[in-house]
């Protein structure tokens, strides 16, 4: 077993993990942060997307030991402590950017990272930028609308 320290949503967490423990399992099973979903075995769906030091990453394609010492933000950490939603969550709500909601945590985390990384996003930029996140319900249009609303509004803050 390896001892690791993760700063998850602003709180330091010490964990004992097997080297082969995937970060997503450490988050879900050890830290009980089950907002981060698992949708595939092939690193292709993005349901497990979190931020590692502010950048989107698929937590199923990292060992927890690789994240030792890193800042991790999960969907549980993006709203304000008073419950005010993150601008991206608010935009998903307003634009009906979800149906079953399974892809949503990963989609929101990927979108927060995307608008930080690429200024001046247009429709195609959002579609390309979210190509690693699959949604089996919405047909994507409302997700694209939500992300564009945040990208164009100047309120992209990835801080919780």
């Amino acid at each position, binding site marked *: 077993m390896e001892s690791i320290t993760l700063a998850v949503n602003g709180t330091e967490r010490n964990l004992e993990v097997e080297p082969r423990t995937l970060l997503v399992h450490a988050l879900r099973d050890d830290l009980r942060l089950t907002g981060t979903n698992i949708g595939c075995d092939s690193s292709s769906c993005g349901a497990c997307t979190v931020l590692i030091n502010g950048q989107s990453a698929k937590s199923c394609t990292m060992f927890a030991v690789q994240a030792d010492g890193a800042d991790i933000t999960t969907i549980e950490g993006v709203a304000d402590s008073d419950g005010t939603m993150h601008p991206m969550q608010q935009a998903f709500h307003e634009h009906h950017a979800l149906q079953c909601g399974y892809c949503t945590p990963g989609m929101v985390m990927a979108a927060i990272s995307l608008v930080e990384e690429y200024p001046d996003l247009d429709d195609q930029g959002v579609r390309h*930028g979210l190509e690693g996140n699959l949604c089996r319900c919405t047909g994507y249009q409302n997700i694209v609308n939500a992300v564009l609303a945040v990208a164009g509004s100047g309120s992209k803050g990835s801080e919780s």
Partner: protein
Amino acid sequence: MIPASFDYEVAESAEHAVALLAEHGDEAKLLAGGHSLIPMMRFRLATPTVLVDVGRLDDLRYINADNGTISIGALTRHSELEHSELLARSCPMMASVAALVGDPAVRHRGTLGGTLAHSDPASDLPAAVLALGGTIVARGPSGDREIAATDFFTGYFESALADDEMIVEVRVPASDAGWNYQKFNRRAQDWAIVGVAVADAGAGVSLVNMGSTPLRASAVEAAVASGASAADAAALAAEGLQPPSDLNADADYRRHLARVFTQRALNAAGVA
């Protein structure tokens, strides 16, 4: 699936990583971005018993230019290539090919050294390094050696690296004239069904997923050098090649794609 168990070692330096590789033999593997290795371990296609994590070697994350040569540290991530102003100015093909790899989350983790070492014939950046005539610097127990990209890819997922060698740097010539990259795929985020990289107005042409390794299209290069039109040169793109057949495309269709996309890439690179 959950990967098989392994022992985990954190490398403090490239030398340390190489020493650990030498100590553990072919049971050990380097772990860089993990974006090829971890998916293979999850499918149990790879079951290394020791992983040597080089992902923390931040001193191997750099992009420098000196006298017409660009040196890139092996741990440089795809997203760092994509957003590099130095590359945008001095070797735009590397930046723009990097931007086509996978999706943003993949690019935040995957490294240049990792994608070269993995030697997947369907991968994008190896083809760019090959077309540019780059050089791979490998560190082993007895020091560094330079391997020309043209000698580096030796077989299906096989490279000229020894079991105890690590890529520390990749060098490409500064080159901003007459380049283009064509990536043909059908699904978002996917690898190329066929890809074509053209550097230096057709002096370097390489093909993605047209054989067991990334390939130089020498017949096309020779035709361009002797003044052939893009159409005539591109007609030779699949000459002598045995591309794979899979669910995406059979070999004949790949040959067709190679000719079509080579012509487009040559045209876009300024070859009439």
